[in-house]
């Protein structure tokens, strides 16, 4: 490890601009002549649009344009798409209802965009938006997925009868049923995974600019995924052909998944810019974020886990209803299927698994990937069930898990995944040791003397990251490949630009990616720039989500670096009159191994560009591109142990200890990894204790502001104790597994296991708020 290379705790390069307020976000972008947009949104969860009258609004001061869905359709703008085709078990394709960027006949959730108003100022746009007169005929709404499936429930889309989008299965139903029948013990549970609002610090925003002279569009947008945004906006929404559409995602203030997708607003702002002849900017306010950012989770499941007489799991059967909201968002279909049910084997040897998943339309905000995306839901089922099973079987939760751990790799699960490496026992050992698991009984007794209920809970999670092998996801219905690209440009003076298709919105790529270059060529971090987020600068890429930027994005960079290295060595061998095989690059020098002959790095770069003396036939320049398609998913795993103390008088839960022992494969920057784990656990504790989106029966979002939606604050969280025991990932050149989502995946069941242990109950709803905990304690008495 060099002081700036792989493994070094380098302070994040990008933080200087972020913490001095110098970051540049979409809302900071100013284009000459730019005007402001406001959207008129549905106040109803379900209604027919009878009439839209824009006359009054058009006459308001400063108004430039008031545009409706009819005009948008007339201009040929397409409907939003879901990019992953899932087939029901009867072979029929998923039943997708139309999602027009501006609603035309019907609105389907509170916040559905109906009209865009463009005006000189934001205030004027909002004033005029209030003057748009829309006549609605209200319809009955349904917000609960289970109720939506019942006969006679309100129909959200004509295309999906009984609101059922697809009824999908995976695994072997017969073998699983047989295992349950023959079992010595079966643990059965009904488990709810609560709906969450992502709450990125920066709200979504879009600036659309149509340049008439060039017949060219530019879109600044808060995207985790600008290249795919361009592709989709060109290919499906008919905004403009790709060569006439530039998408820029500048600094983006957090995404957690919610900014992967293409939303109506960016499409409408681009179209409205052409229509009105002015650049159009829209920035969501916090209420719009709550109402319209894609939400996460919202599953209801029943599970049955079968054990033989040796406490080995013999089968796991799952039935899940997943609420997808009013429209199918871009990746909504793969989250409760291939990102979920394929992880139901967890860290365990389970010979038979079967999962059935029904996805359902309701009159709520669309639901899509949110930090962890499917894997937290799978982990929650498994780890809650394991805990309850251990209690039912009278075993230590740690021992029941250890008894069932997969110990040999590669391991083929019954649900597609092929685990390549791991050491689950090592994580469990590290976590039990760090948490003094053995000494818990003493601490519980001490707490009891203070009138407190103390509980301990663990969670052994696994997830699949680095998504994903393109051919594999293609065969499962994905509309895109999930490789990544990189271009490494060595300048004539030896400084380096790395152009990547990954997108950083808090991850620290400008630091970690530069560390890789430093490791390879010894160039100081300051001489390495990471370029991302602009389709005019960077070749096609697939963006950042699913903890893929390290495993896939950096692997692409490593591949491009290989090519640069090979060429640099050829040049150096030529200049130093040595054999190519004897050249090594070390500490910023290109040397002939075992001699004192060397050239500084920059001289090799300079030679490539002066091209005065290159090997015969070699092209000038030192710049290489690579596309990397991963060979497999990566499988980060770990063990989390949470200890809580509950005040039975008020139901308040205090997390007194939280230990995380993760296996992330090789680590580029331990400080950044710890930051990711801290943030992920904060979100997981948020889900378990604090957060929850609630709609009333009429479809109004009751938790549409921070007055009612509880975000985790520093004071709600303990000081995390994190560590790693790493097995390098054999499936990518850097041995990286990914760490971005682990915390949010592993922590909720650990917290709930601890709370239910403290109270002595089987289950409690998330968020386990003080009132919920108090009611549970009272119900037990």
């Amino acid at each position: 490890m060099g002081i700036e290379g792989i493994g070094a705790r380098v302070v994040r390069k990008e933080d200087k601009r972020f913490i001095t307020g110098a970051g540049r976000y979409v809302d900071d972008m100013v284009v000459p002549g730019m005007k402001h947009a406001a959207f008129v949104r549905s106040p109803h969860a379900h209604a027919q649009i009878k009439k839209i009258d824009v006359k009054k609004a058009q006459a308001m001061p400063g108004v430039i344009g008031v545009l409706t869905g009819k005009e948008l359709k007339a201009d040929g703008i397409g409907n939003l798409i879901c990019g992953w085709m899932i087939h029901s078990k009867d072979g029929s394709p998923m039943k997708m209802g139309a999602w027009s960027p501006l609603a035309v006949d019907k609105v389907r959730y509170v916040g559905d965009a109906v009209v865009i108003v463009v005006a000189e100022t934001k205030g004027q746009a909002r004033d005029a938006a209030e003057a748009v007169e829309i006549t609605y005929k209200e319809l009955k709404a349904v917000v609960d997925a289970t109720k939506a499936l019942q006969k006679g429930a309100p129909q959200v889309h004509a295309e999906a009868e009984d609101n059922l989008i697809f009824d999908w299965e995976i695994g072997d139903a017969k073998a699983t049923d047989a295992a349950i029948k023959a079992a010595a013990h079966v643990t059965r549970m009904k488990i709810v995974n609560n709906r969450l609002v992502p709450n990125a610090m920066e709200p979504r925003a879009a600036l659309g600019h149509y340049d008439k002279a060039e017949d060219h569009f530019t879109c600044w947008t808060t995207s985790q995924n600008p290249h795919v945004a361009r592709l989709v906006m060109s290919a499906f929404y008919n905004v403009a052909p790709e060569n006439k559409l530039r998408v820029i995602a500048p600094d983006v203030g957090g995404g957690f998944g919610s900014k992967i997708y293409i939303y109506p607003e960016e499409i409408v702002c681009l179209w409205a810019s052409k229509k009105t002849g002015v650049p159009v900017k829209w920035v969501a306010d916090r209420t719009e974020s709550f109402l319209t950012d894609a939400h996460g989770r919202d599953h209801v499941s029943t599970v049955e886990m079968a054990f033989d007489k040796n406490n080995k799991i013999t089968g796991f059967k799952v039935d899940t209803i997943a609420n997808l909201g009013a429209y199918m968002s871009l990746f909504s279909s793969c989250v409760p299927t291939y990102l979920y049910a394929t992880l139901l084997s967890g860290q365990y040897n389970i010979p038979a698994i079967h999962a059935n998943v029904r996805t359902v339309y309701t009159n709520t905000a669309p639901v899509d990937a949110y930090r962890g995306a499917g894997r937290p839901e799978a982990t929650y089922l498994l780890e809650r069930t394991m805990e309850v099973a251990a209690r039912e079987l009278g075993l230590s939760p740690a021992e029941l898990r250890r008894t069932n751990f997969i110990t040999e790799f590669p391991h083929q699960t019954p649900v597609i995944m092929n685990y390549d490496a791991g050491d689950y026992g090592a994580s469990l050992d590290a976590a039990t040791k760090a948490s003094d698991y053995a000494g818990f009984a003493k601490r519980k007794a001490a707490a009891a003397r203070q009138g407190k209920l103390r509980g301990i809970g663990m969670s052994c999670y696994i997830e699949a990251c680095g998504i994903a092998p393109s051919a594999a996801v293609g065969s499962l219905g994905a509309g895109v490949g999930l490789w990544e690209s990189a271009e490494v440009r060595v300048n004539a003076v030896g400084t380096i630009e790395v152009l990547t298709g990954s997108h950083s919105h808090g991850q620290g790529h400008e630091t970690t990616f530069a560390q890789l270059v430093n490791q390879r060529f010894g160039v100081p971090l300051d001489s390495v720039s990471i370029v991302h987020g602009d389709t005019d600068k960077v070749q096609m890429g697939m963006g950042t989500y699913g903890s893929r930027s390290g495993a896939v994005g950096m692997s692409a960079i490593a591949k491009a670096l290989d090519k640069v290295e090979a060429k640099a060595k050829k040049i150096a061998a030529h200049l130093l009159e040595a054999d190519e095989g004897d050249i090594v690059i070390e500490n910023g020098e290109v040397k002939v191994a075992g001699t004192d002959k060397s050239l500084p790095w920059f001289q090799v770069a300079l030679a490539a560009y002066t091209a005065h003396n290159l090997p015969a036939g070699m092209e000038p320049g030192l710049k290489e591109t690579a596309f990397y398609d991963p060979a497999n998913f990566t499988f980060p795993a770990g063990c989390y142990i949470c200890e809580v103390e509950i005040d039975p008088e008020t139901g308040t839960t205090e997390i007194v200890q939280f230990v995380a022992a993760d296996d992330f494969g090789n680590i580029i920057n331990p400080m950044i990894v710890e930051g990711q784990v801290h943030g992920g656990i904060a979100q997981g504790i948020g889900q378990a204790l604090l957060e929850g989106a609630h709609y009333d029966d009429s479809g109004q979002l009751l938790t549409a502001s921070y007055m009612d939606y509880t975000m985790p604050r520093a004071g709600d969280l303990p000081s995390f104790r994190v560590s790693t025991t790493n097995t390098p990932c054999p499936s990518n050149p850097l041995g990286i597994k990914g760490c971005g989502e682990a915390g949010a995946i592993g922590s909720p069941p650990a917290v709930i296991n601890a709370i239910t242990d403290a109270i002595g109950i089987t289950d409690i709803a998330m968020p386990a708020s003080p009132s919920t905990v108090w009611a549970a304690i009272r119900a037990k008495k």
Partner: protein
Amino acid sequence: MYAVNYHRAASVTDAAKLVKSGDAKLLSGGMTLIPAMKTRLAAPSDLVDLSRIKDLQGVKVSGKTVTIGAATTHYDVANDEKLRKACPALAHLASLIGDPAVRYKGTIGGSVANNDPAADYPAALLALGATIVTNKREISAAKFFIGLFETALKEGEIITAVSFTAPAKAAYEKFRNPASRYAIVGVFVAKGKDGVSVAVTGAGDDGVFRSKEIEAALAKNFAASALDGVKVPAKNLMTDLHASAEYRANLIAVMAKRAVAAANA
């Protein structure tokens, strides 16, 4: 926010005149009014800013009498040395309001005028038997707090101060709403020359109220143990997303007990 005319009042008399114009509203710390305007839920034509009027600022203690100017910020109430001696419970209460930014701007007058059913000050003023002083008259807290966001204030009437006699013992215990950090239940107990009084905020479906059950139990014996087994009825308590009426009833007893223990400490 809609366009609005801003006036900075130089004196209470000046403010009283200005507030007559159009659909004017008084502005103090703005921590309640401005967010409501930003979300377009409030749309005054004019704002009359009281926060720079010298006469409305600061805490005065003379003998047992405490007077707090209406435009005194929560921060200043929390940190006033004289008040921390005369009635530390009230200074402590102020330190529990919102977050530092809210405490630097928000004022006691604004809070009292707004009478949010989950605000902290109303519990203290009711339990302390305080007087709300306006530019027109003096109103007892018992008559002032009428219902949810409702007070005895008349159109354009300006609170200038609140005053009360320092109690022998007092304490405030607050159970926070996990999201907003307002009170789900806040209990202020005070023991003064007129006996024990206990006021509850955050819980009543008609706003702040005095708890007869708790007062009766404490009248005989001002000790936490006097509340063992005392049940507060759930009737007339709020149920919302965060807490049921039963849970609030429980919390009233628990917070009261803790407050008495703190008052006696």
